[in-house]
């Protein structure tokens, strides 16, 4: 069973819809103890960094998230969920994140319009079970003003160009993150979610 963590940061039902549509068992969980049963975990969310990390902590999710990740449970952060994986964000801060991946979250420094809204391409950096069947250069739907800056470039699975190159897909061990919204990225996004649900985690 996939657990979708609900910590009052945006509408999770579209992510649930995208899993239900593909017949993938899932459950929205609000209590830390419900996470204990999870075989895979998704951390979605939209909005600002600081309320997101505060609500996650207030919900008491952080210790159990760390324990599940230590146990090797596959973990996927989506949008603000990706940003929470990092050590800190400069949004409204600096504010500390979960520190599961080395690096920071920074505001777009580009002459282009911010936030980035729309479909952009992802240049895949290496094969990964999460990316099975997804062509290099596929478009995904983005909405964000901040992006990750990795301490170790090897953690990037996919890079996107929006005036600056930034990591749109990251992986460190059994922790994955995507900056775009797979649940709004049509075929490519549905495939990525299905891969996460079915891939051999080892």
């Amino acid at each position, binding site marked *: 069973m996939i657990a979708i963590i609900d910590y009052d940061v*945006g*509408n999770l*039902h*579209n992510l649930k*819809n*995208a899993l*239900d*549509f593909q017949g993938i068992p899932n459950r929205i969980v609000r209590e830390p103890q419900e996470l204990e049963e999870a075989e895979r975990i998704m951390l979605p969310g*939209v*909005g600002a960094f600081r309320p997101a990390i505060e609500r996650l902590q207030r919900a008491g999710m952080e210790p159990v998230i760390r324990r599940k990740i230590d146990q090797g449970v596959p973990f996927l952060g989506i949008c603000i969920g990706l940003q929470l994986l990092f050590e800190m964000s400069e949004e409204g801060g600096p504010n500390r994140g979960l520190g599961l991946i080395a690096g920071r979250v920074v505001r777009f420094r580009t002459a*282009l*319009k*911010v*936030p*980035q*809204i*729309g*479909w*952009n*391409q992802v240049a895949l950096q290496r094969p990964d079970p999460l990316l099975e069947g997804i*062509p290099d*250069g*596929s*478009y995904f*739907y983005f*909405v964000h003003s901040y992006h990750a800056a990795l301490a170790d470039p090897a953690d990037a699975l996919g890079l996107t*160009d*929006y005036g600056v190159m930034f990591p749109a897909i990251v992986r460190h061990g059994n922790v994955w993150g995507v900056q775009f919204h797979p*649940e*709004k*990225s*049509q*075929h*490519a*996004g*549905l495939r990525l979610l299905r891969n996460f649900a079915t891939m051999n985690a080892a």
Partner: protein
Amino acid sequence: MLAKRIIPCLDIKEGRVVKGVSFLGLRDAGDPLELAQRYNEDSADELVFLDITASHEHRGLTFDLAARLARVLFIPFTIGGGIASIEEIHRIVTAGADKVSLNTAALADPDLIGEGAERFGSQCIVIAIDVKRRGDRWEVFSHGGRRPTGRDAVAWALEAERRGAGEILLTSMDQDGRQEGFDLEITSRISTRVNIPVIASGGGGTTDHFYDALTRGHADAVLAASVFHYGQTTVSGLKRALHARGVPVRLPREEA
């Protein structure tokens, strides 16, 4: 590179698509779900549903529609038309819509923009602006284009952005429905002044029209209804033509 978006728009009344739609082989041209999936498969980047239901007792059907769409449509979609309160925005977003478009209500109560952005995020709040040319200026109209407001379109777009709007949906009433091309001048004026995406609407007929709006008009996206509904062109056909002329678009997956 960020793709330019192609957005079909559907008019909805009491939960059904109105205006003639002539997709070949469609069993029921009035079913928004069937049409939406059709456009989805044809590589539409987003969909906009404009609710023209007059009476409030039938608005429930629109909320139901948003929920039904969200279960089968995995691209962003916007619902607009008559939305007047935070409560209504909340119901539509909870039902599964990604964005709402506000028009008359935002003009009457501009605080609604900021309150909506605060609660649901700027990305959720699209401000629809209907304009008519008045010499060297463009005037904003409310109430579905029936009422002049005396407001200047550029000033209103800038105010909407400052108050937290995530996108501007700009419709030229002079050009709307004529398929003679978008109003490039006001599109460009607003798009080069605001730092949020501008969706050009009203007048799209030929590939040239869409190309001009996305290049000379500096629009980030283009919205059209009749040109797609009546099958003059398909979304994927338009995208291929724009791609051939160097416009970055998301092509159907087998051609990506």
